[in-house]
């Protein structure tokens, strides 16, 4: 019963086209990924799979990114998972807010290209 942890990334995003794009990138790099459609599903998946790193969008239907982050950090089982906030709402005040909430990194989707994101996720896998 050695906890065989599969290193995987959880992406919490609700735009299907974006999901498709980033999934393609992860797949190409052979990074196991779980796509969660929306915040509610995302939190569930996080608790279930304990991913190595979470990539979190902000603007989502229902439970949005901010709420998700708060809940993740409030829950002892998920609070240690590094969270990369990945959004199109990349403004300084927003960044500051999310960093203060406990995000590990904050990136704009027009800044960080899909393959670069994949490489970053790989880093997180390698570090731990």
């Amino acid at each position: 019963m050695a906890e065989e942890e599969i290193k995987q990334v959880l992406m919490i995003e609700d735009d299907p086209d974006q999901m498709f794009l980033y999934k393609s990138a992860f797949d190409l790099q052979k990074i196991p990924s779980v796509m969660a459609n929306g915040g509610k599903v995302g939190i569930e998946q996080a608790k279930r799979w304990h991913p190595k790193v979470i990539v979190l969008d902000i603007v989502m239907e229902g439970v949005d990114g901010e709420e998700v982050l708060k809940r993740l950090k409030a829950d002892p089982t998920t609070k240690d998972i590094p969270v990369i906030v990945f959004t199109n709402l990349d403004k300084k005040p927003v960044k500051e807010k999310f960093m203060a909430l406990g995000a590990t990194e904050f990136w704009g989707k027009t800044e960080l290209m899909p393959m670069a994101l994949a490489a970053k996720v790989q880093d997180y896998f390698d570090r731990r």
Partner: protein
Amino acid sequence: MTFYAFSALFNFFTSLGLGLFVLVKNKNNKTSQTFSAFAFTIAFWSFFYYLWQIADNSDSALFWCRVLMAGAIFIPVTYLHFVVRFLNIQKQKIFLILSYILFSLFLLFDITPLFVSHVEPLLGFAFWPIAGPIFSIFLPIWLAYVVYSSYLLYQRYRSVEGLQRLQIRYVLLGMILGFAGGSTNYFLWYYIPIPPIFNIFTSAYVATVAYSIIRYRLMDIRIVARKIFIFVGASVVAYLTYYAILWFENNLLGGAYSSKSFLIGVVIAGLFVTLFQYSSRWIEKLANKYFFFSLYNYQETINRVSGQLTHYTDLSKINDLVSATIKESLGVTRVEINLFDKNSRSAKKDLLVKYLQTNQRPVVLEELNILVNDERLKDQRETFSAVYEQVKNLGASICLPMVSNERLIGIIILGPKVIGDPFTVEDLELLMTLSNQAAIAIDNAELYKEVKDFNKTLKQKVNEQTMSLQDKTKVLEEQAEHLKKLLAMRSEFLDIASHQLKTPISVISGTISMFKEGSVQKMPVETQNKLIDNIYQKSLKISQIIRDILQASEFDTEKFSFVEKRIVPVDLNKMLTDVVADNKAFADEKKLQLIFTPNPANPQINSDPDYLEQAFFNLVDNALKYTKEGKVEVSLDENPQSIIIKVKDTGVGIPKDDQVRMFGKFERAKNAVDMYTDGSGLGLFITKEIIEAHPGGTIAFASEEGKGTEFTITIPKTKK
């Protein structure tokens, strides 16, 4: 000394005195010169008359007679000369010269017995001259000249008014008296037994001329005359007192040199000095009272008024004071103070004004009259005439300039005196002083008023400004608040806009980057195709978003309104059919029904077709977007006043809380965000602006969450 000797001496002194004074005071004035000549001639005659009277032998008497007659010969011609000069009569020069020659001839005869034949005792006189033959020629000529000269005076007296009239009156009176008196001498020359009792009346002319001088500015030497009067008066007092004391001491105190006299003399001396001072003042007052009443009073008046004037700053008070003072002191019938309006130009052209401005002296009507007639000032006659006429028309006797800082600020107009007397020099001096004081006071008052007004205005303006400052501050604060809101809204808008744009862009740039890396090429074909399709869709999306944003900003600046010439009648059936057709593909995609039933009546509306279509499109598009299943119905109806278009869906509805905000910019209901994160929130805002640009156009909705929404557009029909 006989009475006659005394009368001659008296005549001598008075004539000499008057002649001297007139000459000393006015040596350059031709009138004064001729008058003095006349007076000296009489003095000459009188002096030798005296000598003749006291002569103690017939030879010296005869001699003196001849000498005195030398004087007498020239009396008529000097008289005539004076009259001619005094009355300013022209063209007499030749006649005068001839007269002088004529009388000079008589002078020649005077040396001979043909003129004064001899002297003999007559009627108590030891040595009276008897007429020679030439004398008989001389005498009528003498009389003729005297009468002629007097006639000239009389003629002028009849023809003028006012000052000159009075002057002449007294001169004439005196001359007639004088000559009549003097003529009483001639009776005895012809053995007519009437003694020259009226010889002393020769001096009558002195008195009357003196009076005329004093009262009516004849030759204008009153001040000196007054001094003489006072001096003489005081001397008389001293003289009388001296002899009174002497008599007193001689008869009652045992002589002027007795010890009693010396003692009493001390007291008398003291008394005398005191009394003499009193009496001198009394004499002065007398002099002032009868001839210079005005002077004494005027000094007081001027002092009093000057003091008062400096206290007043009120223009009307100043005017009242000045008018009252002038009326009281001079007894004029009318006082009018005219101030120039600082801006008035017409005043400057006024002839009188110009005249006053140049001369800055009072303009006296009578003086003007004299000036008009004065030969020597012929070239200015026109000016004088014109001014004279103007003054006369004003009904004024005097026009006084009011000068302050060398600037003419007004005119004081005086009517004639109540008693009809002319204005004396003192009068004029008083008036000049008063008018200048008044001018200064008025100038100051106006300045003061200006300052007061200015202060008032300033205060008012400050109040206004302060008030409006307060108001403005409030307005500014409100504006600042509003701006803050706007800025907040704008930054929100920008945030949303940038997010909206970045979303599709991130997909495009992300995908392209993978293409560049060569990653996409390694993916399965379906994946590749999908990615390519994504890029395409996203780029379209960007266009749409940009269009939305631009349109929203179009509605942003002012209240949106249609361009006049783009308004045309719109076929609504056709338009709505087109809109529905445009949205068909979307509806099919979502498996929704989209229905429009054209209205048989096909009502038309005047509108801008492009914008109207846009509005309809937005509504239908919205309805489709926010409906998961069911249908969207479009209807077209009308009533007599308006067109009614409805878009009804079976969608998610709008939550009650959000309904209020729906038409706001970027406002999106929570559940709409859930459904369609890409919505810009501008659609309804734009639609509302378009509909409301129609006169009386409205848009409203009825909605229930979960049940659906119905939008209603109402546009009143208008005549184009």
